[in-house]
């Protein structure tokens, strides 16, 4: 028998324009909790998708108990004893706990089509007992708490004889109390000889539960260490340790008057007491971990979600923004994180998307002046170098970077004074990223105040003049370009400074 | 799983071919005969009721004997569809059109259009209001009323008080009660004491009959203008325990009514229509008109009477 229950060797995976994994490797012992960390886009999730059989690797091999194994599909992975527990659970909400645990594998009476309910409930109770959880197996899962649902997911994994369980951000939605229960459960599983891969952004958890930690960056394996041999700072340095290059063409302008000021903005249960200002001539970054409330703040400013309290000022005057219409009338634009579902109408053409937010400008009476509309679109296609065969192209058929430029064209055509970019480079390849940054610079030169929301620290550091960091719904701090480095941001974003202060 | 485009195309083509086959079957071309048959377009109320199925079967059987080519369409209670069907007949320049109207007044404009194009129009079973039709062929409702009145007079020995459960807004019902009254007038001992509205519906007829039994404790007979009215009255009479004192007669001869009669209940007799006869008469009248013979504006079709005797004879031959 091999030392490892799982070995992933030299895994390489290339997506169009991106090398997602570059000879990455991972070794998992049975009975250990192996933490996997890295920035967004470091390749963790791609690695796990390959392990789960959801995507094939371009090259490299996977060994289970020392034997090379090809994993064809998620179902095959499950048969091999590999179970995934994602942030969004794969539970059927109106079925009972027992039904969910045995979904697709219901015990039947003999060879008949009838379910053997007695056996199903008994077996479900047994599995739950193994993880020391007490639950009524007949309850529908939608009546359970998030933590309890997670327990059901884990029980489901155990019921298929899983030897390897991958948990992707299991703690994101749990309370402290629930987290303690989860850790107790993980320790139980570890004693039973199951290998666990634990993915989390919360570094403190690694030190509480992990045995070893693997750091990934840019699709590569950086290091694997026993947890007791490293410090938090070591891990952060390994995660972000990348020198900044011309990938981020930064231009500096004279900081001008205040454009937008947000005071004590709150939305119950989402974010609280957020205050900041945007000036002309500067780019302000807003960062933090996923779920810290960055996007929600942007949506509230834009009127897409209701704010509970707080006031927004534009050019020093208070404004009331109740809907995106109001925001657009005041010259505020939002380039959403989710381009396909929120930024564009994919079935419409480049021309139609460009003028969508400001159709009034191309109207003659009630009619759309096609000639004017084409002229406008043509201008933006040229200025932004939108690479499309024609302005009549359906945007669905364009690449991510080109789509982002179409969204940008839409907001430029509304004559926005304030533009909020939410993850402007997500899913966009490196070359196109640089182009987007140059466009942002050009906007700032023209006097647009820009707020960039991003999880990519190098990006934030590369193009922003000031950086706001959010942690669990609050502004954890503000860093000037001079003071900011990745470690400082990560400290604020993970709440370490706050923890240290207590 | 993606199905390849080629397969989809094949499937679509196969479906279309099936559709063409359907239309081909339905059409059944009859070539061109030397003696060109007269073409009659018929737009009937429905294809889903036994009454019309019987009528249509008889029409199909009868048509070839008169060298008539039938084009049958069914409106299925939809006035718009009937209107469209008749317009198509007009465009095809058929020799005559036969209609069982879905809506007595709604059919008038399209009949006028046909007449304007010189196409004779006949109605069957249901009359059209305010329309110029050559002839209306339908059961002799008046005769049915007469038969029932005569039956009651005989049964009661020429003496008795009768109530009619009425629905006076319908032309055919008016005919039934007119015939009933006329025949009853021949028997001086028989008297209609009241006419109550039952709207031809069983629950309303039931309530009306209950009131009547209170108001006229000495009642001898009830005439329900259709079987639902008669069966409603039957329920009221039985509930009051008067089934041995009061007799009921109905109209239509539905299976339920026939069963009640056969079981010897207070419902004693029903006037019945013969849809097959109506179908034959339809063709005969149209054929006569097309031959240039005179036809009456109303062509009544004989109705019959069923009672315990006729039913027993029919069921145990």
């Amino acid at each position, binding site marked *: 028998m091999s030392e490892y229950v799982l070995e992933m060797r030299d895994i390489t995976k290339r997506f169009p324009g991106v090398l997602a994994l570059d000879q990455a490797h991972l070794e998992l012992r049975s009975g250990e909790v192996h933490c996997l960390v890295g920035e967004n886009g470091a390749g963790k999730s791609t690695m796990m998708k390959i392990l789960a059989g959801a995507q094939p690797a371009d090259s490299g091999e996977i060994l289970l108990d020392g034997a090379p194994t090809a994993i064809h599909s998620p179902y095959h992975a499950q048969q091999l004893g590999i179970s995934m527990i994602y942030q969004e659970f794969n539970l059927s909400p109106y079925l009972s706990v027992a039904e969910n645990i045995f979904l697709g594998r219901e015990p039947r009476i003999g060879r008949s089509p009838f379910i053997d309910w007695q056996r199903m409930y008994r077996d479900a109770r047994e599995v739950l007992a193994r993880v020391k959880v007490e639950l009524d197996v007949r309850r529908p899962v939608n009546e359970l708490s998030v933590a309890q649902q997670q327990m059901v997911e884990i029980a489901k994994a155990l019921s298929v004889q899983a030897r390897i369980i991958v948990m992707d951000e299991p703690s994101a939605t749990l309370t402290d109390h629930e987290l303690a229960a989860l850790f107790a459960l993980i320790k139980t599983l570890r004693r039973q000889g199951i290998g666990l891969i634990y993915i989390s952004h919360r570094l403190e958890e690694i030190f509480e539960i992990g045995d070893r930690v693997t750091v990934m960056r840019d699709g590569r394996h950086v290091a694997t260490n026993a947890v007791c041999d490293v410090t938090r700072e070591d891990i952060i340095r390994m995660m972000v340790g990348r020198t900044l290059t011309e990938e981020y063409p930064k231009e500096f302008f004279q900081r001008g008057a205040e454009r937008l000021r947000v005071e004590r903005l709150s939305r119950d249960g989402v974010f609280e007491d957020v205050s900041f200002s945007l000036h002309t001539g500067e780019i302000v970054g807003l960062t933090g971990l996923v779920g810290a409330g960055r996007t929600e703040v942007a949506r509230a400013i834009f009127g*897409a979600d209701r704010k509970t309290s707080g006031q927004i000022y534009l050019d020093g005057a208070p404004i009331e923004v109740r809907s*995106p*219409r109001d925001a657009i*009338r005041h010259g505020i634009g939002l380039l*959403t994180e989710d381009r396909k*579902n929120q*930024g564009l*109408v994919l*079935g*419409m053409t480049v021309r139609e998307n460009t003028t*969508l*937010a400001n*159709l*009034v400008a191309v109207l003659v009476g*009630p*009619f*759309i002046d*096609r000639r004017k509309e*084409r002229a406008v679109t*043509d201008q933006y296609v*040229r200025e*932004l*170098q939108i*690479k499309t*065969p*024609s*302005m*009549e192209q359906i945007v669905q058929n364009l690449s991510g970077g080109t789509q982002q430029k179409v969204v940008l064209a*839409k907001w430029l055509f509304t004559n926005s004074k304030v533009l909020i970019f939410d993850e402007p480079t997500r899913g966009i390849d490196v070359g196109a990223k640089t182009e987007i940054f140059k*466009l942002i610079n*050009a906007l700032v*030169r*023209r006097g647009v105040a820009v707020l960039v929301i991003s999880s990519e620290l190098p990006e934030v550091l590369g193009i922003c003049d000031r950086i706001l960091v959010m942690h669990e719904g609050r502004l954890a701090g503000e860093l000037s370009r001079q003071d900011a480095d990745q470690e400082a941001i990560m400290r604020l974003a993970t709440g370490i400074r706050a923890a240290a202060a207590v | 799983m993606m199905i390849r485009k080629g397969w*989809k195309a094949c*499937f*679509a083509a196969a*479906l*279309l071919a*099936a*559709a*063409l086959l*359907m*239309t081909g*079957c*339905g*059409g*059944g071309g*009859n070539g061109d005969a030397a003696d*060109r048959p007269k073409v009659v377009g018929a737009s009937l109320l429905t294809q889903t009721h036994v009454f019309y199925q019987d009528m249509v079967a008889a029409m199909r059987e009868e048509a070839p004997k008169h060298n008539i080519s039938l084009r049958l*369409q069914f409106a299925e209670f939809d006035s718009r569809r009937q209107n*469209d069907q008749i*317009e*198509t007949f007009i465009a*095809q320049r058929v020799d005559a059109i036969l209609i069982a109207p*879905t*809506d007595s*007044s709604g059919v*008038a404009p*399209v009949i006028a259009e046909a007449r304007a194009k010189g196409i004779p129009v006949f109605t069957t079973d249901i009359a059209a209001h*305010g329309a110029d039709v050559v002839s209306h062929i339908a059961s002799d409702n008046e005769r049915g009323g007469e038969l029932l009145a005569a039956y009651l007079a005989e049964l009661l020995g020429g003496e008795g008080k009768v109530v009619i459960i009425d629905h006076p807004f319908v032309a055919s019902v008016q005919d039934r009660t007119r015939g009933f009254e006329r025949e009853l007038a021949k028997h001086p001992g028989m008297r209609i004491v009241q006419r109550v509205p039952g709207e031809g519906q069983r629950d309303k007829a039931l309530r009306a009959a209950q009131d009547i039994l209170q108001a006229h404790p000495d009642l001898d007979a009830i005439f329900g203008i259709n079987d639902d009215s008669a069966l409603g009255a039957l329920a009221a009479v039985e509930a009051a325990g008067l089934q041995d004192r009061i007799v009921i007669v109905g109209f239509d001869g539905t299976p339920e009514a026939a069963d009640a009669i056969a079981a010897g209940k207070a419902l004693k007799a029903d006037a019945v229509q013969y849809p097959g006869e109506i179908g034959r008469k339809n063709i005969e009248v149209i054929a006569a008109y097309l031959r240039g013979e005179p036809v009456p504006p109303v062509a009544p079709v004989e109705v019959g009477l069923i009672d315990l005797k006729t039913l027993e004879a029919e069921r145990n031959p």
Partner: protein
Amino acid sequence: MENYLKRTEGAYGTRGLIVRRDSWKRAALTYGPLILALIVEVAVFEYIGWRQGKPGFASMNTMMLVLNQSAVFGIMAVGMTLVIITGGIDLSVGSLMACAGVACAMVVQWGGEPLWLWMAAGYAVALLLGACAGAFSGALVTWFRIPPFIATLALMSSLRGVGNLITEGKPISPMPDVYGRLGRFQIGGWLPVSVLVFAVVIAGGAILLSQTQFGRHVRALGGNEESARLSGINVGRVKRRVYLLCGTLTALSGLILSSRLGAGSPKVGVGDELAVIAAVVVGGTSLSGGRGGIGGTFVGLLVVAFLNSGLTWIGVETFGQQVTLGIVILAAVLLDRIKP
């Protein structure tokens, strides 16, 4: 924008602006198969009719007849197309059509002389009724967030009941001759008034959808409601207007039908909502919203109308017509799927 944005290299590449040819090509791809199917359909019916000794299906006369017959469905279908493009559905059109006809007939009959005045009043009342019913659906869908299917299903049932209640289930008739003009009178002896109204509604609908801000908003929110909202479109208001328009056009259909029948009947239009939806779908409008157009609906209507008329022409009876119609709907939708 200064230096960076001023560079104007040919972003289109060498192909340049081939807008016109593009849109023609797309139109041909969209409607080509359907138009072809339509021609084949007419040819087949003409052939079978000829074999049966009744030629003349493919004549001007019949064309006018079919257009006249499809006017009632066609006017409703324009409204329905807009509703379906927003991702909704309106099941109440059949009942509403009956109600509108009844309302108009009642007003005319109740009013008496002068006839022209009461005709105008009847039309106004019917159209107002349609607008109100549409506005009600729209309000249910947008303000109370009731799924369109449920909201209009409820309305379908209630309106049918209202029509039957106010007439006690009996048609309102007889109507004066002038009442039939809208549905039957032929301008110059060949162009029925209803066909003219139909043509105006189709053209108006097509222009509304493709040339105006409102139409663009309809298509945008059908394609992606969230994107449309975040682009500052008042999604609720646009939807309410679409339902209102659909209701009004349905009332117009009801007026024409009532005029053709010379009576206000509460029993017409049962099941017609599905026939209208079928025509819209055959015309290539997607039930999931965003995709479709009036042109397609027009061709789809003709395919279904010529089918019904053709089957009657060659003497296929009720049951055969039902089967064939189902098959043709399936085939048309499959044809749509095959398109690139």
